[in-house]
Every structure is written in C-alpha cells, then in structure tokens.
C-alpha cells in the first residue's frame, strides 16, 4: 500500500521522500556504516578535496572527514527535529484540541498563551531560551555537550508548542460545529470519547502537514543557533559542522558546501512533503 502511494506521487515529491528516507536511514544506521571516524582528524590529509583517497567528500582544514561528519551530524540534527516537533506537537495539539472543545475561560487562556509565545519570532525566542538555560555557572567552563543538546531540544520544543497548538485549535474549531459531533453526543458518547474517536482523527491530517514543515523549521533553527554559537558547539550536528568550518572555508570550500547542501536539501524535502500533505488535505476537505 505504501508502494502504491509512492508510485502515485509526482517526480519532485518522489525525489523528496526518497531523500528523506535516505537521511533517516543514514541517521539510524550511521554508526554501522563503513566510514571514517568523524571525530578523528586525519592529520595527513587536511583540507583535501572531493573524491580523494579515503575521503569521498574530502576533509576540512582540520582533517575531519566531511562525509562522516554529515552522517554523524544527521543523527543529532534529525533527533532534535523529531523530538522537538514530536513532543512540542503532541503537547501543543493536545492543548489546542482540548481548549477548542471546551471553550470558555480555558480556551481564552490557552489561546492567549499561544499568542504571547508567538509574539516573539521563532529564532529570537529559541535564542533567548537557549542562552538563558545553557548558561554555565563558571564563565570559564563551557556547558557540557549533553546539557546543550537537552537545552536546545527543550527550547525548540517550547517554540513549536504554540505553532502546532494554534493549528490544532483552529482545525478543531472547524470540526466541532459539525453535526456529527452532536450526533455522537446524542448516541451517548462521553466527551473524552468524542474527542478521541471523532475530533482527533479529523484534526490529525492538518497536524501532520504542518508537522513536516515544522521539522524543516527546527532543522534550520538548530543550524542558525549553532552558527550563532549558542546551539550545538562541538561540531556533532549539521549546524555545528557548518559553524566549525565557517571560519576558514576558503581553503576547503567543499567542507562548507557539502553540509550546507545536505541541510538545505533536507529542509526543501520536508517542505515539499508538508506541502503535498496540505494539498491532499485541501482536496479531501473539498469533497466534504
């Protein structure tokens, strides 16, 4: 069935879903692949170009293999994206759906909270959160890498909550006025059953569609934060890899081109899938 769906897509969307699948496989199978150790600098071949021996994509000026770092970086970048959007989406959607269903004061408070959080542009909010939460007590000592990752994930989750929350709330509002909800109540369903059986399945498609776009947003945000020096610092994510080489790329430009290209292509692919899902949704809504 999945294969059927895939075949029905147009070429561009096919390419995008294939790319994403490759990225996911890369992230999951990373450590098993026969690649050079990404954290080990090959001092004998620093800054070598593409297709050099032993380094398919070459190395950066410090000798780190570019391909290995891309593969390694994908793990963290995709993990952050999936966790932030997954958790943020779940919390945001839950709040949004319940608040639209219940209405009244709760709805007012929730939707005001969403608006408040959305009044600060995404990146700025993420930046402020990471900056504050990732401060280390001792100015000379950097915060541990794991701590940074958690802080980045947490901050981006918080950024995503109102984005998907508002979508979920809006979608729920359009559905609860339909008569099948009143019908469900007249059949004797309890409120929570109505929400789970009838509201959520109808709202979910719009959440998926925007969810993919959100993954793109988070990947970009992580990249931007790392570039600014507040995100992941040790070079173990795509953004960090780019940041690491941004100083002296002129000597080994491919060490910048490659991770940048991979990041951009992944974001484009996410946007396309999200767009495709949204178009599907519009089509289906049109039939009703």
């Amino acid at each position, binding site marked *: 069935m999945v294969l059927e769906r895939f075949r029905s897509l147009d070429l*561009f969307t096919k390419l995008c879903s294939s790319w994403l699948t490759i990225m996911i496989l890369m992230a999951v199978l990373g450590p098993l692949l026969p690649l050079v150790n990404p954290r080990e600098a090959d001092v004998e071949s620093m800054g070598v170009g593409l297709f050099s021996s032993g380094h398919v994509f070459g190395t950066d000026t410090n000798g780190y293999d570019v391909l290995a770092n891309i593969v390694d970086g994908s793990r963290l970048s995709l993990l952050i994206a999936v966790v932030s959007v997954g958790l943020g989406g779940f919390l945001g959607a839950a709040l949004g759906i319940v608040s639209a269903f219940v209405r009244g004061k709760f709805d007012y408070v929730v939707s*005001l*909270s969403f*608006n*408040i*959080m959305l*009044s*600060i*542009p*995404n*990146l*700025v*909010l993420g*930046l*402020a*959160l990471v*900056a*504050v*939460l990732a*401060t*280390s*007590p001792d*100015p000379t000592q950097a915060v541990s890498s794991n701590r940074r990752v958690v802080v980045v994930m947490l901050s981006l989750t918080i950024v995503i909550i109102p984005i998907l929350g508002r979508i979920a709330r809006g979608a729920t509002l359009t559905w609860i006025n339909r008569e099948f909800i009143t019908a469900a109540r007249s059949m004797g369903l309890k409120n929570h059953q109505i929400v789970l059986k009838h509201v959520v399945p109808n709202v979910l498609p719009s959440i998926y569609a925007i969810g993919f776009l959100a993954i*793109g947003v988070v990947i*970009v945000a992580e*990249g*931007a934060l790392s*570039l*600014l*020096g*507040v995100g992941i610092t040790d070079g173990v994510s795509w953004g960090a890899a*780019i940041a690491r080489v*941004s100083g002296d*790329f*002129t000597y080994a*430009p491919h060490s*910048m*081109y490659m991770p*940048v290209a991979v*990041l*951009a292509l992944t*974001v*484009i692919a996410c*946007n*396309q899938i999200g*767009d495709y899902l949204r178009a599907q949704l519009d089509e289906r809504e049109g039939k009703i």
Partner: protein
Amino acid sequence: MKAKTTSIVDVLKRLAQLLLVVIGATFLLSLLLRLLPVGLKELYVTGLFEEDRQRQIKELGLDRNAFSYYLHWLWDFVRGDFGRIVLPGGGGESVASHVGRALPKTLQLVFYTQIFALAVAIPLGILSAYRAGRRTDRFVSYGLFTAASVPNFVLGLLLALIVGAKLEWLPPLGYVPISESFVDHIRGMVLPVLSLGIPLIASYTRLLRTDVIATLREDFVTMAVAKGLSDRRILFTHVLRPSSVTLLTAAALNMGALIGGSLVIERVFSIPGLGTEIGFAIFGRQYFALQAYVALVAVGYVVFNSVIDVIVGIVDPRTRERRGA
C-alpha cells in the same frame, strides 16, 4: 453613524488584546531571567564588602519579587530606560545607546529586504500567473518552491563565499553607514538583502501567482477584456488590488522569520545590528540587555502586525463594505 461607534469599541478591544499579549510576553521574559541556572545575584553582584553588595543588589532591583521587579522594569522600559551593561567596576554603557546604534542597521536590513522582495515579486508573480500553463511554467514553479524553502543563512553563506570571497564582485562583509558613502552602503547591503530576500521573493511570487490565477478567472476580468482594456492595465490595476491583501498579510507574517533571519545574516556579513548586539549580550552574559532586546523585538513585531491588520481592514474591499462607507 452606527458603524463608526462600533469600530471605535473594536479598536479599543484590539488595543487591549495587543497590550495583553505584549505584557504577557515581556513578563514571561522577565520570569525567564529568574530561570538562569546561575542566579543573577551570583553573576552581577561582585562587591567585596557587604554594603557594596547591598547597594548593587538594590540598584539592579534583585531584591524585588517577580511582580515588583517586572512592574519596575516595565515602567523603565516604556520610558526608554533599558538598563545598563553590568560591568564589574560599574559604569557600563546604557543599553539604550546600544539599541540606538544597532537598531537602525537592522531596520534597514529588514525593510530593504521587504521592499526589494515585494518590488521583484509583484511583477514576477503577475507575469508567471499570466503565462501559467506554458511548458516552462512547471520548471519555474519548482524553482520558486526550492528558492522559497532554502534557509536564508545557507544563501547567505553561499553568497558570501562565492560572490564575496571567490569572485569578489561585492564585499563579503562589513557595513558602511549611509552617511559615509551611499554607494558603499548599498554595495555592502546587496548580499545580505539578497540572502534574506530571495526566499521571500519566491514565497511572495508563489502566493501572488495563485491569487492572480484565481482572480483572472473571475467575471470582472472577462468584463474588462471585453471593454477593451489593455492587458497591462487589467493586470496591474484591476487584478492586483484584491491580491494586495494577501501580500500584506504575508509580509506581516514573514516579518518574524525575517527578524530571526537577520540575526544570522548580521553574523555572516558582520553587520553591527541588533542581532550582533544580542550576540554580544549572550556571550557577555548581559541578561538585562538581552531581556531588553528581546522585549523590543516582541513589541516591534506585535505592533507591526497590528498596524498591518488595521491597514488590511481599511484596504480590504470586503470589510470596507461592511463599514458602511
């Protein structure tokens, strides 16, 4: 007469909502400071003697509770007092002076980008809608989509790399104020504006394209053609008007992403704007300054959106009717 009175009440209601959002956001920010793993006192209270420490604590308002602190902060903020940079020896510059220097540069970047993007996207969008369905159209639409999805810092890095460093057509970094040299100012801004602007152009073009294609199908267009109006006249005066609302709204929505993007672009191209100041504040652990900057951004964003809302309310032909004009 009746319509006018309701709209004043509406305006007040909207203002109240606005105020609520801004107060909520700035209050949350001031709470955020309290979440610092370190504690503001440890960071800033550096006096050796107890009385120095007490004095510092009082100065910085660290002895107040969350609400009291916020209210004092708010009162200062609306009067333009954004606090000072906290230095161990005291006597840091006022944050307001940093803002005064940096904000105009960021505003320039952001507004040049919006204007540039709209100026290019409008003819591009109309043209591509006009020629929709031809063979090259598919290609163009995918190209637009890709351009719209490329992260702006990626573009920035690539442009700086290729056009700036390798080809040396334009300076890869540095900012020149208008007062010094208009030409150099523009030259310095070209690459940053392109990096932020190309995705925006693509996004506006796509939006306009869809809108115009839909509008072209409407009866009033057929009527205009039948009347004998020239294609250009129809496109630019009749068709553009309804789409202007969509564009305005899109411009407002994109402002947030633009502001975020400008942070990174300022870093890439070394433009000493608000983004750079925010960076300094973060690395210098100047959290009061950070709070002020972010609050400014939030207020600016909300106000900007509300202004656009009002403009849309006036310009949108649908709402104009309702107002009984």
